[in-house]
């Protein structure tokens, strides 16, 4: 009786899995660990550095206001707008810097590729929710802040199955 053995095998497999560890990542308490500090781009070699594509981080001392990130975003999401900043840097004559609307951003990272001065990085911060749409628009001052992330959970594999540690 192939049918009977099949049914018994299936039931047995079901009962066996009652003893296997749960795989669920309990998100707000646990956060997955990522590689590196986020996606960065090396303009000299033309290759990116692997990392999570989360919220951007802008280095004010490197940004020249060349608008290349805004031009890159124009064809993708139109999330980047160049705004006036009060700071006056020698290399940023126009005193404009990107302002990113995370309601539109698709986190493709092409703006990071476009920046020739290492001024725009992506970070591991992905918790960007806000009560208002205005809250999603990050000004250059907000983008300057390095996010404080506590992500330490990794997938662990042992005899009793895989878990999120």
């Amino acid at each position: 009786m192939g049918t009977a053995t099949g049914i018994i095998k299936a039931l047995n497999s079901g009962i066996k899995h009652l003893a296997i560890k749960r795989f669920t990542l309990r998100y707000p308490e646990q956060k997955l660990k990522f590689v590196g500090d986020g996606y960065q781009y090396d303009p000299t070699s033309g290759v990116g550095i692997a990392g999570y594509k989360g919220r951007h981080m802008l280095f004010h001392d490197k940004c020249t206001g060349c608008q290349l990130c805004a031009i890159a975003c124009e064809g993708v999401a139109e999330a980047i707008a160049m705004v006036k900043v009060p700071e006056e840097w020698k290399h940023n004559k126009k005193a404009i810097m990107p302002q990113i609307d995370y309601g539109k951003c698709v986190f493709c990272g092409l703006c990071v590729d476009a920046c020739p001065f290492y001024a725009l990085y992506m970070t591991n911060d992905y918790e960007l929710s806000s009560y208002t749409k205005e809250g999603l628009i990050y000004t250059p001052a907000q983008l300057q802040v390095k996010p404080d992330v506590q992500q330490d959970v990794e997938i662990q594999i042992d005899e009793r199955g895989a878990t999120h540690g």
Partner: protein
Amino acid sequence: MTAKLPPGLKLQKVDERIMTLNVGPQHPGSGHMRLIVQVDGDFIVACDPDPGYVHRGEEKMAEYRNYLFNIPHLERPIIHDSCNILYPYVLAVEEIIGAEVPERAKYVRVIASELNRCVYILYWLGIYGIFLGHSTMFMWPMGDRELFIDLLEKLTGARVTHAYFIPGGVRNDLPANFEDVCLRQVNYFEKRIKEYADIFYNNPILIHRTENTGVLSREDAIRLGTTGSVLRASGVDFDLRTKEPYDAYEELNVNIPVLKEGDSYARSKIPWLDMFESCNIIREALEKMPKSGAVRTKLKPNPRGGDVTVYKRTESGRGSLGCYIVSKNKPEPYRLKLSVPSFRNLIALPYLLKGEKLGNMPAVYWSLNYWPVEADR
């Protein structure tokens, strides 16, 4: 009944036995599309698929953006297989602008593509499970998918829409220690999908239920131009990874699973066997990959092609995916056409559902490896 109808409307004489069901888009068993199903008792008399619910004109959008900026939005039609939908596009653009791909990048692409294929197949399998009322087969693939999502996230920096392939290579090199993590998780995953056999694929109820339903003969599969798992389940050994190997597949050893039955059971089994093959390919590619080297050639800014037309095709998670680009000396494609496998498989649906039982509808429909969003583009 006696009320006068407004002008322009006519009462239709319908056979009273026949009931028309609108399956979708708000139906749990349809996805983002509508199937107009006419049933006579428990038998389906006719089925008229009505896709287009999520049509967003990707092909038209592509005519306004240059070859690079097309990348993030061209992967939107199927975010679970985004590396594979970009693959033919990237190959075609490389031919148009004449870019060379470094050897290491070819292997990285193959690895990303195979990882992504598994991610897609697991998602598909989860939905196939829940369509057949098997909730465990929904949860297990969704959980195991996390292993590959995690790998792709380490590799590309995004969980679903990777935007990883780029004309001339890939966006970034492998992160440190990636090979070990990848091997560990792939090996564990292979052990894991073997456990699907007892509970799902060898389950007698599933076999009784899906065997001999929606049988697509070999001749019909060829005539209807189906592709991917549908074609291979009908006994046609056709997979572009072996038939027209691109990138690093030429050097890799690929064994394509082929089944002869052509019913929904075989169609659902092919992707499962494919995942074993993907694991082998990933392991082999990790081994054969050059340990160092460039992964991306520098392109000119804003590259533009000549006055050529290019048709490239690759094997995605659902079947062969073609990309036809007409270039007219511009940085943007003049016309971009994606010949997507879901759309090609859709034609088999009304053909297969005619005369089937209503209870078989989800099994046949989803076994076609059909992704509504991709079909609509």
